């Protein structure tokens, strides 16, 4: 395996018209520097466009790019929208290199593009000739605004892409963002992916395994009540988790109301019966789902409480569960690792789409 060490390659300022030439020169330089060694390889599985809306955001993303391209080699375009007096488009090119076993240098290209919001209409013409043919193009929307709320900037980049990746965790107005995004996702033909879905993977795994009819017979079809507790900025995660459960188990959102600033309740229709869902936001903590409690009736009534602990284990709270103990390792992957994993999944995720469909309806019935 390649080593994680990243060899810095100095970045070069170039004109927009010279980006491809500058990248070629960069390769010539790398090959020349490697003279007598075992060679330099351009590693590239995708074109990756990353969209940021501030310098701070871009710096944060840029710090993770070496790790990202180690996991998923790509030609990276890091776009930053900057409000400043200068209307010119500022470009720098560089590469991220590392040594693989055998000494071979593996390099991925990195193009930094900074532009004034008034230049958004030119982005397509800058990027289109630089996209490597025969490889998929993905847009990672790194901004903390819901994509459809960002107008032409998002629309232009989405048009160039085969896949859109966004992260709903941390949106400033999550309830509105979730509704907006759910509408957009349901009308979208290309694969669209929310990183929140990946954050929820350990939750989906443990629920699927612990609530399996072999372990908890009769529980899934008789769930009566769910209470979910999450940290700040994790409302979209909670909605999506409930959306997934509802879509898999055939629950239909019937009505919902905001109880207070930090609590919302829904009634779902399940098998002709009412089912209560309550989502509570904690004032402190990190943006994740902390606890999910459920009660079920039927021939084998019981209850279970799933807890996400500081030790990154997701487990059943034995004191509040009628089920035998269970736990899985739920290490939160780094953002870059999740992006890399998502870039490799190029098909639409039907389960995600269905969960988002329910989320949209949850938004629609809220206040009814």
């Amino acid at each position, binding site marked *: 395996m390649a080593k994680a060490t990243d060899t810095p390659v100095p970045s070069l300022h170039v004109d927009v018209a010279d980006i491809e030439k500058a990248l070629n020169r960069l390769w010539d330089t790398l090959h020349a520097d490697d003279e007598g060694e075992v060679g330099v390889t351009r590693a590239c599985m995708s074109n990756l466009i990353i969209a940021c809306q501030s310098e701070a955001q871009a710096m944060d993303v840029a710090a993770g790019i070496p790790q990202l391209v180690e996991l998923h080699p790509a030609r990276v375009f890091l776009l930053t929208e900057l409000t400043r007096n200068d209307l010119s488009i500022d470009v720098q090119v560089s590469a991220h290199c590392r040594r693989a076993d055998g000494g*071979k240098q593996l390099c991925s290209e990195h193009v930094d593009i900074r532009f004034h919001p008034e230049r958004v209409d030119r982005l397509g013409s800058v990027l289109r000739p630089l996209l490597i043919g025969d490889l998929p193009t993905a847009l990672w929307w790194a901004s903390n605004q819901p994509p459809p709320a960002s107008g032409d900037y998002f629309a232009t980049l989405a048009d160039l892409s085969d896949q859109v990746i966004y992260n709903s965790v941390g949106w400033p107005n999550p309830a509105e963002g979730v509704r907006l995004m759910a509408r957009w996702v349901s009308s979208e033909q290309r694969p669209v992916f929310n990183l929140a879905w990946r954050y929820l993977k350990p939750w989906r*795994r443990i629920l699927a395994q612990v609530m*399996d009819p*072999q*372990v908890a017979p009769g529980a*899934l079809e008789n769930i009566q009540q769910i209470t979910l507790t999450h940290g700040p900025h994790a409302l979209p995660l909670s909605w999506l988790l409930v959306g997934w459960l509802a879509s898999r188990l055939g629950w239909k959102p019937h009505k919902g109301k905001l109880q207070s600033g930090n609590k919302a309740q829904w009634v779902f229709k399940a098998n002709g019966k009412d089912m209560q869902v309550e989502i509570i936001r904690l004032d402190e903590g990190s943006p994740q789902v902390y606890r999910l409690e459920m009660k079920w009736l039927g021939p084998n009534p019981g209850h279970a409480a799933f807890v996400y602990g500081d030790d990154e*284990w997701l487990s059943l709270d034995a004191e509040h569960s009628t089920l*035998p103990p269970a736990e899985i390792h739920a290490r939160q992957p780094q953002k870059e690792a999740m992006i*890399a994993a998502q870039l490799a999944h190029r098909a639409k995720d039907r389960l995600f789409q269905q969960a988002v469909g329910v989320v949209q309806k949850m938004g629609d019935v809220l206040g009814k």
Partner: protein
Amino acid sequence: MPEKDVVNPLSVDLSDPVLPQPCTLVIFGGAGDLSRRKLLPAIYNLGLDGLLPANFAVLGFSFEEMSDEEYRVFARQGIERFSRQSLDEEHWPNYQRCLYYQQGSFDDPEAYRALKARLDEIEPQCGIPGNRIFYLAVPPRFIGTCARHLKAAGLVQDTASGGPFSRLIVEKPIGRDLASAREVNEVVGECFAEDQIYRIDHYLGKETVQNILVMRFGNSIFEPLWNSKYIDHVQITVSEEEGVGTRAGYYETAGALRDMVQNHILQLLSLMAMEPPWSMHADVIRDHRLDVLHCLRPIKEDEVDRHVVRAQYDQGFYQGEEVCGYRREQGVSSDSTVESYVALRLFIDNWRWAGVPFYIRTGKRMPKRASEIAVQFKDVPHILFNQDSEHPLDANVLALKIQPDEGLSLRIATKLPGARVRIYPVKMDFRYGSTFGGQSPEAYERLLLDVMIGDATLFMRRDAVEASWEWIQPILNAWESGKKRWLPEYPSGTWGPVEADRMIEEDKRRWRIL
């Protein structure tokens, strides 16, 4: 698919088609080398990646005296030394909680009753509804014994009962000839149904091996060429740079033909040569692999010397150091006629492969560790660029590399830059390590997860094991009746004996230099 399809809408996930069900993995030989080097690290990695069932336990079972606590130390040492991912101190306490140990002798019925009692005690604590996987990491002579005792102790659930599952993983070798393989299969088959038995060949868990099917049937450019009309011949090489080392005891009873050809290499061959399956269902794939084995042209006993070369390594050099010959290795008889190298020429008598020779070679103390399948295409016609019969163009070669650098390469002819037309072979190279980032899971990780899920695609079925022995048996018979006192030799650190070179050169072909 699992024996019993449980209706659980939450278990459907596009990225993980089926979730593993809660289960206990009982490792027979749990305190042994395979367990320490491969199995416990594989389980640890699955846990670290969040892929194990939420309710899961490992119970090591061996004759060594050991407490649960000591077994956890044993596992930790194995993981620290051999795991793909380094040991995570934060994760360790949770992982080790699911490790247990039970001392017992493989041939003692009482030990199995104690094992059952221990499982009945552990499983409710861990929320495991009685699903059990028994991994026989034991010497071959104990396979039948373990299976019988498991059955007698009531540890094997009937597949048709619809209750918890019982699955058995059996390590190779299955027998040492056709008769003993049938015997082992018979005994195991009396205790477990065929769909409960997973005969493991770790080669089939390697990425490149799985990629053979994807490459052949996921690309439209290869399959039309994958036949005798376009392919000149195929070479399969599995070379090792090390000698017998500490495995002399086993190796003296096996040799290269039994150790590598009967299982790993014939499995590779069947994947490479099979007809397109009509589904990815385990038994469809396995049926198609079996068809290839049935089409192998039998080598009659009096033809063995023509088509098979066996040899032993002689003294020579390994990484600049002088090393001894096979007969001088510790644990090897000084008059041993066990082969450390074997080369074969074989044919697959079906429409697709009519007349295409397959050359196979495997051996120890060769220049490097390498496994590959190389498909050499036919020469271009002797016109235009291939008129010089003394310097023919290099043929196109598609090489599937299985280890150590998994990937594939294609050799093609190109024009050298310049005014004249000069042709030079270049290699287009794809390597997993440099194309895809991240680490590939180890073969055992993939295979253990498959057993938990109940997917037998990458495991050998009884009929395939016996078909491969059936084809091998005349070679063993010929060697047995030949009673040779000396085998050809090759210096350690070389690609094999001259006899093997002569065999392929008779056909106007050459072994590849890897």
